[in-house]
């Protein structure tokens, strides 16, 4: 029973990883690609590792540390990449309506 639950979780994680890959191919610009890759692969990693933890209860602590590490690093790195892409003015997709970063900078009065 535990094996079955673990396997299903791993499979779910694999589906999320697949959707991350699909998003990388299908999304129109750098920013949306980045968010597809990051969100889906963070959740996919977490699910795969949780499934492994159910499958091998002895590994739980180490897997928990890895999950923590992924949850810490993945959003931070994609945030830094997206910000750098914004900084060198990589164009957004044509129908992007809202640019919150520009709006907030205009509101605070300034600078680049």
């Amino acid at each position, binding site marked *: 029973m535990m094996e079955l639950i673990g396997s299903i979780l791993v499979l779910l994680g694999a589906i999320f990883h697949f959707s991350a890959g699909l998003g990388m191919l299908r999304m129109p610009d750098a920013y949306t690609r980045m968010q597809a890759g990051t969100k889906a692969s963070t959740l996919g990693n977490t699910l795969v590792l949780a499934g492994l933890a159910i499958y091998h209860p002895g590994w739980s602590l180490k897997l928990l540390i890895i999950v923590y*590490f992924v949850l*810490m690093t993945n*959003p*931070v790195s994609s*945030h*830094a990449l997206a910000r750098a892409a914004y900084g060198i003015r990589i164009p957004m997709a044509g129908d992007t309506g809202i640019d919150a970063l520009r709006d907030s900078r205009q509101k605070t009065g300034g600078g680049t």
Partner: protein
Amino acid sequence: MIRRLFTIVAIVSFGLVFASLAIGYTEQQFLRPLAESYVRLVPQALGAPNVITGILLTYRGFDTLGEVAVLFMVAASVGLVLGAGRSPPSVSSEDRPEEARPPSEIVRSGAEILVPLISIFAAYIIMNGHLSAGGGFQGGAVIASGVLLMLLAYPQFQPNLEFLSATESVAGALFVLAGIAGLIVAGGFLDNRILPLGQFGAFFSAGAIPLLSVLLGVKVGCELSVILEKFRP
């Protein structure tokens, strides 16, 4: 059209190559004689459960020394190429204000949490090289990734290059000295039996292998950090 055709042909031929590899694969039932003698000899003679580290740091220790020397040459040539026409960092950041974007709060907070974690992980990898997967080279690379994160989160962070060079040189000299001690006391250059083997599988065991791992980790970490520092704009 022709490009797409080429792509398809390339993918199909790659698929055929890999398919033939996958179909022809049979799991090896027996170790080859060389592998078998290593697998038997390393835990017995060197007292290291991790056979690969035992081979790398003892039987192939001279080779490892050569690899570290190659890395040192890379660091030296990167310094030569990138360091020559380079203005001091304080001037360049004032000259080009739009390139000196401050790192965001998220990156900075992330670095505050992650750098200690990365350092602990590096120490763990280096110190457990003789027991499980790991060793000096890998741990040194992890140290350098922590330094890279520091460089990203704090652009003003200035690693002390003299200190790094001195540490790296001392670690390298100690590595060679340990090798020569092996030549005098034990069976040959970089023999790990200059220190007592200790209990098999314990933290302090396998003779000089943990010591050599630490020296190697410090040396590789310093070298890679110097290289990363040179790439700073």
